[in-house]
């Protein structure tokens, strides 16, 4: 049976099994209908022209993971930014792991989506926010239909969250192939500030497909600093759908670090609903082998005096392929918009490729919008310069690649996180440069 049919036919069983209230039931039912109609995206769709899901959809994924797949702290410790005290929401094969997590309800809610969906005290919030900004396309609808678990984070107003919140998903390989559909809802109220780190990691060589949806709401003057670490194993694929709705004077930043996985697709959408909003989208992609990373971004400028900053760096080796499709939409009312977009790429091999496509649709007449994309190789004269100082070829390459990504790394505000990313990159490049950038 094809995956699509399997999912559609599993839906009724799924709803029995999660036991949910009526309003969510209606949303889910509509979502599964949408998915049934639209199915998985194909290369015939413009937004998926350079990314084919065929190779990841061919596996016979389990849709209902087995229960107890308990991991111990020592198994997963390396994946925590453990030098820092953090709230943690840890999921193992899609199931919440209470012994690895550190949740809270004291002054803020860092807890489970399943609780938020089921408990009456959250009903109003769910009705106001759940599935309000996720797109109604096939892939996001599939997640909506099966949404049961994930992170629920609600920061009340005037709250500076004292430590980062980590959301971690592990898969253990108890199933021969597993599909995960985490669903996150994050609401940050007026004047509050939160840092969130999200990571998906497979501890197995079995095929894993994650189709994740995250909805983030930043209310007036709120600040959200969100980091995604994508450094998964060869058989793990991720479709990340993240939607951010911003109110006036709020700041939202998403950094995406894509260093591995079989196929990674990031659908990152910012919707500005207010004046003087600042949206930042930055990313570093460093991949090799036959890996594929696709960044599909949208910034929708609706009101005047807002800004957006996009800066994506990509380094592609071997037969790796990359896609950057960045759309900036400036509505007629959105005067004085300042939108900046850059996508710079380095190809390390003849067989690596990148398709980059800036897309600007501007209906206002008094705006500053710029975009630029470059594709090149490492600068040979810089290589000679470094090598003439005694830095061997491999290290010189690594140094130039670090340098190339430095302005994205520099905007990482959690020092431990920046350290970790630096180490992952150094590890990936097989060098020890002996200093922290």
């Amino acid at each position: 049976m094809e995956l699509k049919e399997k999912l559609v036919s599993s839906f009724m069983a799924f709803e029995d099994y999660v036991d949910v209230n009526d309003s969510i039931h209606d949303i889910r039912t509509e979502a599964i209908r949408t998915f049934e109609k639209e199915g998985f995206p194909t290369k015939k769709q413009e937004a998926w022209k350079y990314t084919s899901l065929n190779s990841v959809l061919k596996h016979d994924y389990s849709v209902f993971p087995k229960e107890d797949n308990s991991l111990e702290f020592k198994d997963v410790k390396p994946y925590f930014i453990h030098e820092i005290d953090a709230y943690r929401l840890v999921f193992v094969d899609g199931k919440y792991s209470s012994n690895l997590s550190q949740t809270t309800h004291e002054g803020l809610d860092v807890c489970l989506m399943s609780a938020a969906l089921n408990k009456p005290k959250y009903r109003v919030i769910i009705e106001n926010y759940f599935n309000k900004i996720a797109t109604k396309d096939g892939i996001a609808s599939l997640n909506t239909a099966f949404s049961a678990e994930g992170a629920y984070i609600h920061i009340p107003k005037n709250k500076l969250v004292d430590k980062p919140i980590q959301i971690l998903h592990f898969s253990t390989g108890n199933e021969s192939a597993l599909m995960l559909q985490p669903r996150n809802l994050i609401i940050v109220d007026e004047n509050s500030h939160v840092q969130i780190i999200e990571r998906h990691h497979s501890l197995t060589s079995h095929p894993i497909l994650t189709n994740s949806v995250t909805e983030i709401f930043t209310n007036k003057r709120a600040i959200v600093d969100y980091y995604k670490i994508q450094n998964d194993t060869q058989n793990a694929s991720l479709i990340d759908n993240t939607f951010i709705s911003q109110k006036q004077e709020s700041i939202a930043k998403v950094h995406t670090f894509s260093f591995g996985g079989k196929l990674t697709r990031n659908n990152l959408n910012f919707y500005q609903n207010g004046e003087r909003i600042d949206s930042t989208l930055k990313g570093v992609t460093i991949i090799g082998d036959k890996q594929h990373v696709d960044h599909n971004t949208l910034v929708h400028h609706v009101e005047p005096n807002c800004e957006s900053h996009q800066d994506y760096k990509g380094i592609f080796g071997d037969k790796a392929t990359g896609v950057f499709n960045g759309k900036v939409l400036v509505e007629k009312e959105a005067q004085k918009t300042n939108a900046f977009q850059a996508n710079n790429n380095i190809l390390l091999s003849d067989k690596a490729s990148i398709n980059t496509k800036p897309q600007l649709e501007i209906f206002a007449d008094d705006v500053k919008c710029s975009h630029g994309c470059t594709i090149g190789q490492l600068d040979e004269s810089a290589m000679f310069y470094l090598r003439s100082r005694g830095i061997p070829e491999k290290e010189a390459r690594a140094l130039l690649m670090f340098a190339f990504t430095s302005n994205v790394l520099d905007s990482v505000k959690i020092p431990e996180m920046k350290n970790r990313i630096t180490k992952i990159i150094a590890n990936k490049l097989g060098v020890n440069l002996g200093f922290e950038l």
Partner: protein
Amino acid sequence: MLKINNLHASVEDKTILRGINLDVKPGEVHAIMGPNGSGKSTLASVIAGKEEFELDEGDIVFENENINELSPDERAHKGLFLSFQYPVEIPGVSVTNFIKTAINETRKAKGMDDMPANEMLKLIREKSELLDINRKFLSRSLNEGFSGGEKKRNEIFQMAMLEPKLAILDETDSGLDIDALRIVANGVNKLKSKDNSVILITHYQRLLDYVVPDYVHVLYEGRIVKSGPKELAQELEAKGYDWIKEEVNA
């Protein structure tokens, strides 16, 4: 120290060096002068191991070892240093991190451990004072937005840190005002010893007023056509290169 025998080199089938012979002994300072396009910078790059040049004939012997086939980094590990005419700007790598990496990679190649951090700091402080370099300068991105003088001073700072046996200074004097020239020349003089050697590549006499050469060579059309004592440089300054060209063409 350095012995070059009948060196021929080309780039993209264009022959630039046509039989260079040069013998530099420890403690000596050699100046290589010559008109534009005579092959001075190519000679410097070929000695340092730049791969885009094809070595067609001849040998480069450094410390009694043929280094024709060595990579630029291997040559650097043996004690060769090239101060670039146009130092490359590398945004995102600070001067300090760059020099630390260079020193520790060189030590690694020699089977030594990394230089302890406090020792490194002390060395950086000492050498930056020698060249009148501001500490803030060291945390800036390598050569990015540096003035011409700053770039050249940074090159000599790197030389001071790496303590090479043979330093080739490619047009280090170009683009320097007189104060910067004095600082750079001072630095070079302080680093000179009976054990290490310097090759100065220059257009003009003025650097040679500060760093006095033992020998002056004139490079023309890929060959050393004339060698002599330091007075030759003054003669070239006074008379230009035309008389050399006439001599060669006669």
